[in-house]
């Protein structure tokens, strides 16, 4: 985890003064900036300072907002979590249903439809889906707002455009893992016992088939935050992605860096959590 920070700190060595400085600053300005942010010190000391402050939650100030970066990041969290949660719900819903349906009717028209739907989701950039949704639902049909934050109507389009891509992965995984489980001995036993089909698939097979899907869903949770940057920008959704976009456009380096750092740490923690959850779902896996 520390190495993530090492790497990020290493990148500070470019010449951050140039990034912080407003365009057109001369050499004297640069020198002053270097002194103010401690950039004239040797790199190891800079790195040490960075870690020391970072551990205390101090990641510097935003040039644009004039507030501590950590405060701004925390302020943007609720919107991001709401969007990610909704997108996760939609993508898992689509993925599980589509995967089970396609696996039950292998080679049928439904299977083909599901296959095309996932391929489309994987191939279309999410911000383009977002633009198309705006075109259809806001411009043509005038039923949903083009952007903003607040109600369920505001949430629908961003969550769907973000979720579609991820639903493809869940569909495929549900599909293949359900097929694998359905071929196993204990399902054959359930069949021999004369259990109804719905109970076999829904209760016995589904529970085991869902394990890899849960893993992927957990790992994806943080990937989604990163993928949401463009979607949040399109819909003016006040989350981390939009914060990062505004930071990037205005060369507010501290903000951009803090968001990346924060999300990376979240990613590491998430992977750990998935491992624990994995062991809980599958009693055969136990870590010493």
């Amino acid at each position: 985890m520390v190495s993530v920070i090492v790497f990020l700190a290493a990148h500070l060595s470019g010449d951050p003064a140039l990034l912080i400085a407003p365009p057109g600053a001369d050499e004297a300005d640069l020198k002053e900036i270097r002194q103010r942010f401690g950039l004239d010190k040797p790199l190891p000391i800079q790195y040490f300072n960075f870690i020391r402050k970072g551990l205390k939650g101090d990641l510097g100030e935003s040039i644009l907002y004039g507030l501590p970066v950590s405060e701004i990041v925390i302020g943007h969290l609720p919107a991001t979590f709401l969007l990610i949660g909704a997108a996760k719900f939609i993508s898992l819903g689509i993925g599980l249903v589509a995967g089970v349906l396609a696996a039950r009717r292998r080679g049928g028209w439904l299977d083909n439809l599901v296959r095309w739907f996932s391929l489309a989701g994987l191939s279309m950039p999410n911000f383009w889906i977002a633009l198309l949704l705006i075109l259809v639902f806001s411009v043509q049909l005038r039923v949903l707002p083009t952007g903003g934050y607040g109600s369920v109507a505001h949430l629908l389009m961003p969550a769907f455009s973000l979720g579609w891509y991820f639903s493809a992965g869940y569909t495929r995984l549900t599909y293949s893992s359900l097929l694998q489980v359905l071929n196993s001995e204990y399902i054959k036993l359930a069949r021999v016992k004369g259990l109804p089909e719905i109970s076999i698939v829904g209760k016995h097979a589904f529970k085991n088939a869902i394990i890899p899907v849960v893993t992927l869903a957990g790992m994806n949770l943080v990937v989604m935050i990163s993928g949401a940057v463009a979607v949040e920008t399109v819909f003016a959704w006040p989350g981390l992605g939009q914060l990062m976009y505004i930071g990037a456009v205005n060369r507010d380096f501290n903000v951009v860096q803090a968001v990346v750092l924060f999300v990376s740490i979240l990613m590491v923690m998430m992977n750990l959590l998935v491992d624990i959850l994995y062991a809980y779902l599958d009693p055969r896996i136990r870590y010493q």
Partner: protein
Amino acid sequence: MNRLVFFLGQAWDILKRVPKAPLLILFILVASALFANLLAPHDPEIGDPRQRLLPPFWEERGRMQYLLGTDTMGRDILSRLIYGSRISLLVAFAAVIFAACIGTTIGICAGFIGGWADQIIMRFVDAWLSIPTVMFGILMAVIMGPGVFNIVIIMSLVFWTRYARITRGETLSLKTRDFVHLATIAGCGRWRIMRKHILPNVMSSVITLASLQIGIVVVVEASLTFLGVGVPPPKPAWGLMLSEGRGGLIAGYWWLVVFPGVAIALLVMSFNVIGDWLRLYLDPHYRNLE
């Protein structure tokens, strides 16, 4: 000579079986990238101010000279799409090749040398992998500034780690195999073994990974460009066309947004289908799984 014939034979064999529709799309896009200056009916960067915001030819105000309409600056959409394929394909191929080279070299070295060097390199790779793709790209783009060449560098820096992980894993198992031991006994040096004995054996996974990744590279490049930190205007990049067309969306200028997106989706889709197919083709093991 014999090797060339063998190679061509293999290439033909692959070409015979690859799914045809995505191959055709890819062929058209590559051709339009190569012959953009012959195919494009208008200049992609200089527009005609009198012909602003014309719709595609089948609509009421549309004109045959501007098949897919014009944008806010009177530039021909079709020409911009054709020139745009150049940027997308160039960035995608260059970035994937760079990333594969960096990643494979580091992965093979880490796996083969082993010990603490391996540990350090792989921890570093793990840390690198835990930084989310798009955000990492934006961070790098903010540091390096916009430009086509910079985007290629950024993309390869973002994507090389996956190659390192895969090749390192394979090298670990390959180096315990008999042919590597025999090569050592025969007096081969480390570098020679890595180059002549390990590298050819990891190539198929590298190619598979590259073919699966290239679609993602196109999407990430389009995202960065869309967000204004990738390819700078007035270049006709597809992501840029989307971000420029965004403003006209509410007014109903749908063609500004639909066509570039279709181009991206078609390109990525054909990459994905071919990549998926290649994965099965190169690894017969998978055939039984699906």
